[in-house]
């Protein structure tokens, strides 16, 4: 019988909640206790659980499982000998930071995005990985990509077109959004309209800082991004981005964004105070929702704490499934809404720092 799970990748392990028959969510177990989990995910295509570990001492590790309890360590993606991040700086995997399957027509194809900016592809469900050369060899990479918050550029978003598995977007901090139409052989930037306040030329095609990119799965020409410099939306597949931030906030700075699966006018963000502070806006927690393509935003606060709050929600820590939303924060709080964010219930106030949140429907 299908079961609803909620996977939290946290600083101290993979924490799983499950939905009981009465509809309530309950803690189930913790895997990899003590180990930082940068991403926890479930691939519906193959029924595989994935956990990306970021051992501070021992490097990044990749694990997969068929049941979420018994895990197998695989060789994590590695940069080929001689590759460089920049001239004279050897490339090595610093963080496994994004996961996607390769499309429903290609079970066993998976992508992993990493810091320092390499995208890796497996066609054997993780037994082996290859660096996607077309992106790594992009002429802009060595000279125009750079780290934002981390030491080196990192791929945090991978979007595979549900109708064409050779059509993929990625988001890189800091470089911007790139698109391929041929399965990864050739890539081009798609950043027109973005404004990077931290660059001498804010409208530079390369060097933008999307924090996360998402899209309306039913209408993937409509894409959204929470950017370092605001919130942006495109209706033409990334050719032109429009700033849809609230000038006076709170929907402005943040990391996470979730696009409605079928309604291209609807998305959610979890705002924070801009880069130098990184705390909740006005020491209160809210999720902002737009229902008109970003023309207006509504702050949703019912059930969320409204005083003495410091939480930030990281980019992969807001999850959506139908009308359900869940997010986890830097200070270990986790919240769930069953009604599009109109009201929230507290799942946990004692988690470790939360890196990622994902709903999964498993057999």
């Amino acid at each position, binding site marked *: 019988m299908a079961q609803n799970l909620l996977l939290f990748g946290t600083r101290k392990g993979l924490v799983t909640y499950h939905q009981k028959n009465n509809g309530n969510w309950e803690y189930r177990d913790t895997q990899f206790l003590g180990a930082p989990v940068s991403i926890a995910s479930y691939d519906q295509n193959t029924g595989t659980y994935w956990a990306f570990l970021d*051992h*501070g*001492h*021992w490097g990044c*590790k990749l694990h997969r499982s068929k049941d979420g309890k018994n895990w197998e360590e695989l*060789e994590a993606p590695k940069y080929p000998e001689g590759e460089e991040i920049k001239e004279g700086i050897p490339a*090595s995997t610093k963080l496994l930071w994004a996961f996607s399957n390769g499309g429903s027509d290609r079970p066993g194809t998976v992508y992993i995005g990493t810091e320092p900016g390499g995208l890796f592809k497996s066609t054997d469900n993780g037994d082996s990985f290859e660096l996607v050369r077309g992106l790594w060899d992009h002429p802009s990479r060595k000279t125009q990509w750079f780290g934002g918050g981390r030491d080196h550029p990192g791929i945090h978003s991978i979007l595979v077109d549900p109708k064409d598995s050779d059509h993929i977007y990625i988001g890189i901090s800091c470089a911007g959004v790139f698109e391929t139409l041929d399965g990864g052989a050739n890539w081009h930037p798609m950043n027109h309209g973005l404004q990077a306040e931290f660059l001498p030329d804010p409208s530079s095609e390369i060097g933008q800082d999307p924090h996360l990119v998402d899209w309306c799965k039913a209408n993937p020409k409509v894409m959204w991004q929470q950017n370092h410099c605001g919130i942006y939306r495109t209706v033409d597949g990334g050719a032109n981005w429009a700033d849809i931030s609230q000038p006076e906030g709170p929907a402005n700075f943040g990391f996470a964004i979730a696009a409605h699966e079928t309604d291209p006018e609807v998305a959610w963000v979890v705002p924070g105070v801009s880069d130098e502070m990184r705390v909740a806006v006005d020491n209160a927690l809210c999720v902002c929702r737009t229902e008109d393509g970003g023309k207006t935003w509504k702050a949703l606060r019912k059930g969320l704490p409204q005083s003495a709050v410091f939480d930030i929600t990281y980019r992969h820590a807001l999850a959506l499934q139908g009308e359900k939303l869940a997010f986890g924060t830097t200070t270990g709080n986790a919240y769930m809404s069953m009604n599009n964010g109109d009201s929230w219930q507290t799942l946990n106030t004692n988690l470790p720092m939360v890196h990622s949140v994902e709903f999964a429907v498993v057999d």
Partner: protein
Amino acid sequence: MPTVKFTSNLKRFYPNLAPLRVKGNTVAEILKEVEANHAGLRDYIVDENGVLRKHVNIFIGNDMVSDRQTLQDTLAENDEVYIMQALSGG
């Protein structure tokens, strides 16, 4: 042959880890032998460029290795090599 001893922290991932006597004239060479005995363990100690991970230390006797990039410190017949977790984070 030098003997390699491991921090107990690595037993979390390799529960059967015990001191190993392995052939090798340099630290890099003995890490190859370590890998041959415990598949995947080398990845916990060095990155894909063979560079010692930031928070891992290797000692030969009481002396920390000087070459963290290519691990060319040389070993004598009866040296003991310690693979340790660096103290970091307080």
